[in-house]
C-alpha cells in the first residue's frame, strides 16, 4: 500500500525544455544527453483544441498530430529524474508549449548560426513566461562562426542570459550546457527568492 501522500519511492521529477528553430539540433541534443534512446509521444491537435467529449467526428478530426521527443536522466543516488523535452520546431504548434513549459525548471534555446533568427520566437516565449533559459549556439560545420557576444547582440539578450557554444552531437558538450542551465537557474533564484 502507498501512504496518503502517495510519494513512497517515487522519484522527484524535473523537466527541462530543449527549444530552437526547425532543424537546429533539438533531437540531437536530447539524444546525446539522455540515458535512453529518445522517445516520441504524439499529441493530437484537435482533441486539445476542440475540447469535447463527443465521439462524433473525433476520429476524422484527430489526424493532425505533433510529435515531441524526450529523453531521461536518472540520478538514483538522490532518487531524482530529469526529463528533457524537445519542443516542436514549427510555429503552428505553439499551443503545445503551454503544457510543455508548465513547471519546467528552465530551457535550452538552441541557436543555429545559419538561421539565428529562427530562435527569436522561443526566446520571446521564455522571457514572457519568466522561464529561465540560456542560448546554446550549435555550430554546424561550415557555418559562420560567431562570438557569444555577437550572438547576444543579434538576439538582443539580457546581460544575465548565458550564451554558450556547443556541439549538440557531443555528450560532454551538451551535458555541460545542462550544467550551465542549472547553475543559471540557481543564480537567478538566489537573486530573486520566491
Amino acid at each position, binding site marked *: 500500500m502507498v501512504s496518503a501522500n502517495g510519494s513512497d519511492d*517515487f522519484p522527484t*521529477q*524535473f523537466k527541462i525544455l530543449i527549444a530552437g528553430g526547425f532543424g537546429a539540433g533539438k533531437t540531437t541534443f536530447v539524444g546525446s544527453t539522455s540515458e535512453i534512446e529518445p*522517445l516520441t509521444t504524439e499529441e493530437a491537435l484537435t482533441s*486539445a483544441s476542440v475540447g469535447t467529449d463527443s*465521439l462524433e467526428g473525433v476520429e476524422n478530426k484527430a489526424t493532425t498530430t505533433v510529435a515531441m521527443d524526450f529523453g531521461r536522466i536518472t540520478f538514483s543516488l*538522490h532518487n531524482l529524474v530529469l526529463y528533457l523535452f524537445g519542443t516542436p520546431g514549427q510555429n503552428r504548434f505553439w499551443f503545445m508549449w503551454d503544457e510543455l513549459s508548465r513547471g519546467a525548471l528552465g530551457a535550452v534555446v538552441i541557436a543555429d548560426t545559419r538561421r539565428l533568427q529562427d530562435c527569436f520566437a522561443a526566446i520571446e516565449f521564455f522571457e514572457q513566461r519568466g522561464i529561465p533559459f540560456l542560448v546554446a549556439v550549435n555550430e554546424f560545420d561550415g557555418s559562420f562562426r560567431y562570438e557569444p557576444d555577437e550572438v547576444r547582440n543579434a538576439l538582443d539578450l539580457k546581460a544575465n542570459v548565458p550564451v554558450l557554444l556547443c556541439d549538440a552531437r557531443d555528450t560532454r558538450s551538451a551535458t555541460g550546457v545542462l*550544467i550551465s542551465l*542549472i547553475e543559471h537557474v540557481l543564480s537567478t533564484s538566489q537573486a530573486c527568492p520566491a
Partner: protein
Amino acid sequence: MTVPDGEGSGTWMRPYTVTNGRTHPTTALQLISMVRTTGRVPPERLGGEHARALQLCHFPTSVAEVAAHLRQPVAITKVLLSDLIDSGAVTTRAPSATAHSTDLLEKVLDGLRQRL
C-alpha cells in the same frame, strides 16, 4: 526505435475507440507525472490497452514514457491511466513546485557533473 512501423499504425488511426470516445481524464495528469502499479489489480482483469498500460508501470514511470511505449497520443494515455488510478491499479505523483529547491537543484547539478 520510436517511429511507429506500418503494421502498428492501427492504434494511431483510431485512438479514441480505446477510451470509448472519452478525451478527458478523471485525474489531472501532466507529462512528467509519475505512475506506478499498486499490484492490487491483476492486468488479466483489464481490457487490452489498460492491461498494456498497467504493465508499463511496474516501476515509477512518467506519463510521457507510458504514452511513448503504448504508441498512443498523450491525451488517450492520460484517460487510460486515470481509469487505472480510479480502479486502484495505479498510484500517481504529480511534479511539485517545491522540487525546485536549491537543495535538490544542487543534487541535480552534482549528478550531471558526474556524467562528464
